[in-house]
């Protein structure tokens, strides 16, 4: 196991370098960070040249990337458009988005898995078909439409929750945004659990458990659930990265000042350090989440052993 973890971590390094370089390339080579500093006005050529020299923009791209990476590892992510350091933006934004992601994942686990288990065990019945259709509708409607509709209904029309989130973003204000963020994944979790449960109800070990005369709840929890949830856990693990990326839409709808909001501001104002910095961290989170899922796999399924 130890050797496997080390090998995976080593494999992550080229992927991390490649992904971040790709982002770096998009922002610095395809865009023009200096022109962006001046907004709509044309920059004075002398000033522009001076800024280019200060930001190492005249060096070849790979050298700029190396300088950037060196700075990152010393904790210097550069300066955002308003003069604040990108690190301090991260310090305020990441806790908010992490809270939002936690709420979303809780929804996926609690609602998604329960619905999946219920429908999987009642395959073909009307309630199964109903839930299945509902998941298809949820997947088909774009998240931002569902977001605005739910915000309008719950926040404005019925006044159950506040339609926008305060800057501190405590958990109780994040319930609706978390649900919106989770919805599509929740539908996938439901479908995945349903298929998995339906497949395993026909498995030999389950028939054995029934034949042994075990009580029903024990069969479901110890035998059926434990085996059926392996693919679901994998899905939820890889979903962490997608949720943090998808937060860019949810945070915009509910005006949450998290990662997605800062990233959006950075893009709107063409602030290269903000964009590259935030995306770099998100890529890292995504890769680590994938690694964790692979390790979890071995824990949950004893047949899989990593040498």
């Amino acid at each position, binding site marked *: 196991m130890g050797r496997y973890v080390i090998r995976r971590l080593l494999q992550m390094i080229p992927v991390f370098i490649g992904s971040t370089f790709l982002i770096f390339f998009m922002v610095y080579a395809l865009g023009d960070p200096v022109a962006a500093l001046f907004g709509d006005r044309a920059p004075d050529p002398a000033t522009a040249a001076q800024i280019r020299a200060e930001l190492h923009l005249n060096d070849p791209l790979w050298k700029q990337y190396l300088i950037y990476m060196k700075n990152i590892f010393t904790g210097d992510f550069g300066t955002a458009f308003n003069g604040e350091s990108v690190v301090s933006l991260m310090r305020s934004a990441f806790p908010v988005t992490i809270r939002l992601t936690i709420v979303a994942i809780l929804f996926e686990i609690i609602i998604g898995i329960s619905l999946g288990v219920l429908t999987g065990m009642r395959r073909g019945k009307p309630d199964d078909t109903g839930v299945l259709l509902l998941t298809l509708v949820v*997947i088909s409607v*774009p998240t*931002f439409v569902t977001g*605005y509709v739910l915000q309008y209904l719950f926040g404005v029309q019925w006044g159950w929750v506040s339609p926008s989130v305060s800057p501190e973003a405590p958990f109780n204000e994040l319930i609706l945004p978390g649900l919106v963020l989770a919805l599509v994944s929740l539908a996938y979790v439901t479908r995945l659990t349903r298929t998995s449960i339906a497949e395993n109800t026909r498995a030999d070990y389950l028939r054995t458990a029934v034949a042994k005369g075990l009580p029903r709840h024990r069969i479901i929890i110890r035998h059926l659930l434990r085996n059926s949830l392996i693919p679901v856990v994998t899905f939820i693990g890889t979903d962490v990265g*997608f949720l943090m990326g998808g937060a860019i839409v949810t945070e915009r709808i509910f005006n949450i000042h998290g990662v997605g909001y800062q990233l959006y501001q950075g893009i709107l104002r063409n602030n290269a350090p903000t964009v590259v910095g935030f995306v770099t961290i998100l890529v890292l989170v995504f890769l680590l989440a994938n690694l964790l899922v692979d390790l979890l796999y071995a824990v949950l399924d004893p047949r899989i052993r990593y040498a």
Partner: protein
Amino acid sequence: MPENTDAVILDGVPAVAPDGAPVPVDKRDKPRSLWNDAWYDLSRKPIFYISALVILFLIVISIWPGLIASQDPLQCNLIDSQNGPSSGHWFGFDQQGCDVYTRTVYGARASVEVGIFSTLGVAVLGAVLGGLSGYFGGWLDSIISRVSDIFFGIPILLGGVVFLSAVKGGSVLTVSTFIILLGWPQLARIARGAVITAKEQDYVLAAKALGAGHGRILLRHIAPNALAPVIVWSTIALGTFISLEATLSFLGVGLKPPAVSWGIDISAAAEQIRNAPHMLLWPAGALSVTVLAFILLGDAVRDALDPKLR
């Protein structure tokens, strides 16, 4: 999945009749191939016909929107702004005073174009790269797999916002290019797995023993047998790519006015939902029905190709 496709082929061959006598295989009783079998299954499903009809209708109106809409989508009058339904304008007007019905009809084209271009690109690039890496293995496999890991490491929505804002995109072409750029690794993985399973089969060994070259083996023997998962995934992905285009337009980096697209209209309407919900209903409904049709079609095709789920 590929081991199931084998089961289909075996099931499709009526080697032994119920009474135990071997069935004579002549022209009238030809063994059904995987594709015949899948078609036989599909042709019995109402869902398949419904979703195929929706998609066909969509393609027709995206080529000739004038067939069902007589007005000009850019002919707008601010005096009508946010007006509700009236005679002659059953869906009402949007913020700019444009007819919602006309814009919904004309908006189909952009979505369909993005969906088809990006899916074709992803399918071709992913199937070729994934197929080659699965078939040849070795260093080619290592290189292609690592490169796909790199593209896979970037969440698609984030990558889209960064890429499209950097290239100052906003056309069907740039949005599709981006989707192809970040979308291919997923298909490459699927194709790679399918090809690895297919190349271990006896018929491939037999072809090799008969002296077939790589090109012939890949095109004549492996491709037809590894195609099923690629087709299923691509059909479902087409729907999600259309939805992705709308989301990118909502974030302000996708298509831009004066282009007419569902994404543009939905994001304009979504912000005005409190004043004029009717503006949102039609473009959002059209988009959702389209995405749903592709998902259902993909599901039906998968069920037909994969007997395990029956």
